[in-house]
């Protein structure tokens, strides 16, 4: 595969190149790292940036909270500024068949043929944390393709949506009143991950109780040194969306000023590296175990194997894009 040509297409913002680059990233094939290196090398050099750059907004929350409808409204707000926007909607794969039915874009179809909007559905393909392992790299592709705002939607079930933390600059948790969420919200890990909490369907009778219990639950909680905000929206009518969009921008500015944004982005690179290495190692050991089952069943001395692996790993060094040692 011509990864240099593909990278060029991505950087030129060509839809088919972007779409194919995402498929390559998802496939896990070795060329995906060539492509990503190509893109990283040509992005602006880090460290000199004064502006925030592309904003990655993560949205999570329980099924039915209105995440997709909310995103559809946020797309409008972004498009009013003239900026291009991309959405990555992650849904679970079946652990049994590996298949997936991806329907999030049904609620975003107001933007049908707007060339400034790119929407991609992604199946989690066994990734943990409600987020596909490839989502992190897909965000990189979309940033390189020139999308100023990238919205990532992930399935919110229980505590697993902490995965969205690793790839977003700012995390929105969407909740809806009167569905037992008040109690859920208090116990689940979601109370630690949001920069902003959105009570959607705020025209429902129990909305104010929901807002109150959220505010109570978030008391003394800090995210990136800042107190999370609680906002109200009615996404189906667009109510509160302009305020939400403004709040996202203000919070991003604050995070940028305190250096927290930069810290989160550095963490993202570290997580991507860890993801790649973990994936490689786990695949390697699985393949060896199934291929060499006979040898393994005859008995392996664990201590000797550990020593051998450690010796092998000690030879590892970090290298920069020019192939020189980084340490």
């Amino acid at each position, binding site marked *: 595969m011509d990864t240099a040509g593909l990278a060029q297409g991505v950087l030129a913002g060509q839809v088919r190149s972007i*779409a194919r680059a995402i498929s390559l990233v998802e496939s896990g094939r070795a060329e995906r790292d060539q492509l990503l290196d190509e893109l990283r090398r040509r992005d602006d050099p880090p460290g000199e940036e004064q502006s925030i750059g592309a904003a990655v907004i993560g949205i999570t929350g329980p099924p039915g909270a209105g995440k997709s409808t909310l995103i559809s409204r946020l797309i409008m707000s972004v498009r009013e500024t003239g900026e291009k926007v991309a959405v990555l909607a992650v849904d679970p794969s079946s652990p049994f068949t590996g*298949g997936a*039915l*991806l329907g999030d874009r*049904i609620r975003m179809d107001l933007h049908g*043929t707007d060339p400034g909007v790119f929407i*991609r559905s992604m199946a989690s393909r066994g990734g943990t944390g409600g987020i596909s392992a490839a989502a992190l790299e897909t965000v990189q592709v979309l940033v390189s393709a020139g999308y100023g705002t990238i919205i990532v939607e992930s399935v919110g079930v229980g505590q697993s949506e902490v995965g969205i933390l690793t790839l977003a600059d700012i995390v929105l948790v969407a909740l809806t009143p009167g569905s037992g969420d008040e109690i859920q919200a208090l116990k689940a890990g979601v109370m630690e991950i949001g920069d902003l909490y959105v009570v959607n369907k705020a025209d429902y009778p129990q909305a104010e109780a929901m807002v109150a219990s959220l505010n109570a639950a978030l008391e003394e909680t800090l995210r990136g040194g800042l107190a999370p905000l609680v906002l109200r929206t009615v996404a189906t009518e667009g109510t509160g969306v302009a305020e939400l969009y403004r709040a996202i921008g203000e919070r991003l500015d604050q995070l940028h000023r305190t250096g927290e944004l930069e810290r989160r982005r550095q963490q993202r690179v570290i997580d991507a590296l860890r993801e790649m290495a973990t994936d490689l190692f786990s695949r390697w050991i699985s393949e060896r175990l199934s291929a060499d089952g006979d040898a393994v069943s005859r008995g392996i001395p664990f201590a000797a194997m550990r020593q051998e692996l450690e010796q092998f790993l000690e030879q590892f060094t970090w290298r920069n894009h020019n192939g020189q040692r980084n340490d």
Partner: protein
Amino acid sequence: MSQKNKIRILIAKPGLDGHDRGAKYVARALRDAGYEVIYTGIRQTPEAIVTIALQEDVQFVGLSLLSGAHNELFPRVVKLLREADAGDIVVFGGGIIPDYDIPGLKEAGVQAVFPPGTPISAVVEFIESCSVAGVSS
């Protein structure tokens, strides 16, 4: 995890027909057969369907129509895909399609038509036969 590209299929409802029971059935069945299926929802223009197919990088587009406008809308999707340099995406159709319309649709580039009563295994076989032929490389 599989190293090869997973087969992705777009199930789309062109035109003004709002009945999507069949489309949803096929979408679910293909999911259960192990494919990644994207469903557009009802009342899509051919232009929107092509935009979605490109963004989602699907290898197949399945069109479902019950209103009778298939002779107009199915070939239009094929034409727009070709114009977008995406003629490699396989288009197939289903819904209320009279037998006598099928040859014309095939001539226009719709590679298979599955009328009511088709077992889902026939659709899966079609997808697998196209994929073996190298469509999903």
